[in-house]
């Protein structure tokens, strides 16, 4: 756990640059801090957990570890779609341990210069704002920087309140 927490969770946008993994969700590009990404695996068998929230796809076996998997489309309110050969599970380490995020595709790893990142509110205002910590304007596209702890329920307790609210 200590190792996970050691991963820098930048709150202020650094002046220098962001080292990120870019993934696609419903034709939009998102970025995750590369420090938080443990690995990227192909879609594999997921065992659903009865009674869990609709966006919790279930749990999967990652080399002997039981890892909960979240469907990011459902979590972010994007209409669900069929899994494709491009579908990936991005395994991240968070304050509640390892979590898998189902995304449409993983495109690349890149560095985004800090001066190209703007706070999210400047571009869009919506409920998904809580999941984003900035938007980068690249030459050919926009990339939203995902706030990992915002996307994930912080703990089992919070998770409980999430499910009650749902």
């Amino acid at each position, binding site marked *: 756990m200590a190792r996970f927490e050691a991963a820098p969770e930048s709150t202020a946008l650094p002046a220098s640059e962001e080292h990120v993994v870019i993934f696609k969700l419903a034709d939009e590009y998102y970025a995750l801090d590369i420090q938080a990404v443990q690995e990227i695996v192909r879609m594999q*068998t997921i*065992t*659903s*957990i*009865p*009674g*869990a929230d609709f966006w*919790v796809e279930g*749990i*999967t*076996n990652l*080399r*002997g*570890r*039981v*890892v*909960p998997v979240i469907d990011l489309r459902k979590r972010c309110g994007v209409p669900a779609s069929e899994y494709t050969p491009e579908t990936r599970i991005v395994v991240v380490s*968070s304050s*509640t*341990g*390892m*979590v898998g995020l189902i995304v449409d595709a993983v495109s690349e790893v890149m560095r985004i210069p800090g001066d190209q990142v703007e706070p999210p509110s400047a571009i869009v205002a919506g409920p998904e704002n809580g999941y984003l910590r900035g938007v980068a304007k690249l030459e050919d596209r926009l990339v939203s920087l995902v706030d990992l702890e915002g996307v*994930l*329920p912080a*703990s*089992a*307790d919070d*998770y*409980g309140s999430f499910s009650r609210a749902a």
Partner: protein
Amino acid sequence: MASTKGTPLQFDLDDEDLKLFLEEAEEQIELLDQSLVQLEGEPDPALVQRIFRAAHTLKGSSATIGHKKMASLTHAMETVLDAVRQGRRAPTSDVVDALLAGLDALRVLANEVVTRVDSGIETERLEADLMAVLEGDGPAVALPEAHDAPVYQVPAGALECCWEDVEQGQGIYFVDVTIASDCQLPSIRCYQVLQEMESIGKVAACWPERDVIEAGGGEYRMASLLVTRQTDEQVAAALKAVSDVAAVRLRQVPPAEATGPIEGFRDEPQQPAAARPEAGEAREDAPAETQRGANGRKASQSVRIDVERLDGLMNLVGELVIDRTRLQQVREQLSSVLRDASLSELMDNFEETTSHLARVTDELQEQIMRSRMLPVRSVLSRLPRLVRDVAVKCGKKVDLVTAGEETELDRSVIEEISDPLVHILRNAVDHGIESPEERRAAGKPETGTISVTAWNQETYIYLAVRDDGRGIDTSALRRKVVEKGLMTREAAEASTDDQVVQWIFMPGLSTAKQITDVSGRGVGMDIVRTNIERLNGQITVSSVPGKGTEVIIQLPLTLATTKALMVSANGTVYAIPLVSVTEALADHEADIHTVGGRKTLRLRHRLLPMIDLAAALGDTRPRMLPTDGYFVVAARHGDRQAAFIVDRLLGEQDVVVKSLGDMLGTRKGLTGATILGDGTLGLIVDIASLVTEQAAVAVPA
């Protein structure tokens, strides 16, 4: 000093030292906690020496890290203990009280190392109290002379590293070294002796343990088991060359005696006390070593391993176990396809390899499991203090007898059994044992006896708590149950005493005439039972009026694996712990009725509510029962039962229990997940919560 409360503290240690310090401090404090209570009125020299040594070790380690308050308090305690040790002061209750007060402060002080904040403990006052006790005019008593030769217990597996040498003809020697009594720093001499032995051979076991000696804990006597090619004269000469060594005695031990059945050779009779420097020395030191010997199991050849690392190994082995199962499946499939004769040799080869892998994996799993095991002593050792405190509060006289401290079980279980055990003991002292007057009137000894015994049987550990108190008052229980409206008077009267005794597990029932601050904490035996069943254990109670009560807890040796009945329901595989399964049958064999619109299973003259397992767990996906029939699994929690509808029975299996992780937390009805033979995951069902919930729903119907 009090004014310093809250000020930041600095200690001279890094994280690794901190961990070591805390581990050691905890160990010694625990030891003191356990033994100080026994000290009262029973000045057994071995015990006194053990306590003295623990205080001494604590003093040393706290001084090393620069914890001045802790060092000076342990010094004061040591001074008092020294007086007791030398027979200058009898360990009367005021002495023990002062020492216990010091011990409580030590706990807080040790924790300052973590918090780095002054806790405001006034060590001066405690030290003054200790000194006052010392100067008090309590009678001096002569300690009983130690007469028997010390017994050294060779730790299991101690000789493992040396067998090759023994097979090549090297000798095994028992070596006893006495350091001159005028030596200023015996610990250094012990260390030198140890070094010397290691330069001429291998030290298989050592009393005191190697790490005690290395930490400067050596005293005027040490003993060891040395494997060397040298002759006894050579060994003696080499060791006598170390300064301040007053005497060296050694004796060759035949390998057969050293192997022995598991426990290795036990008795190591001492030579006559010719070499003992003086009577006083001998009296103090010989029993000390007896004690060391008794504790020898955790001695010399052990390494501290991070629990996380062990868990990691456990995970990997779990993976191997799964791969093995998959390989076996592949083998079966292959052999049914490849009937071609030319391939038979290849197949044989493959079979041989898989079965070898299977054996090795089983062995590996077993070994790692064993390395996670701890003696139950760490739990039992806390009990004497608890019993003393509770007995004092209730005005009872109680002797606690423990047995089976060496019984080992998985550390995960150890962590869980402490609370239930403490609760049961509190009950035993508070409700079980009568007041001294009552006992006298009943013709019993004034002092009651509570025994806590641990033992292994098959893959379970048993803990029995017996008291010789008044037994469970069945007529009071009957009244209570009726008063609380839990049962009609007729039903209560019709129940046998054996049945009534079981009612102590009913929720919300307390038979104590008044709520005491000892047991009346709102935590009843029902919670104890729930907790134990959560661990896949069972608890039973029996009682004889006027004679006493016995509570037996049965727990699996480990929580890491559990035997389960595998079933499938609505496309998901579930594991139902076998301990709660009473019956599993196909629907056409089952005696199913509809009672009040609910499906009900009649099983052995009982009507069990039938519940769809998937639905009970909250599976909201469309549900379709198999067209060719379904299965029913009857499961129990305490005396409640329910029957769960499942699609298929998949057989029994040892499952490795894995947590669902922090994010999912504890889910209703599930205790975790397990990896199946095909690499996918199955869910482990928490029968206790499902049965409780369903039974509650079922009762009004």
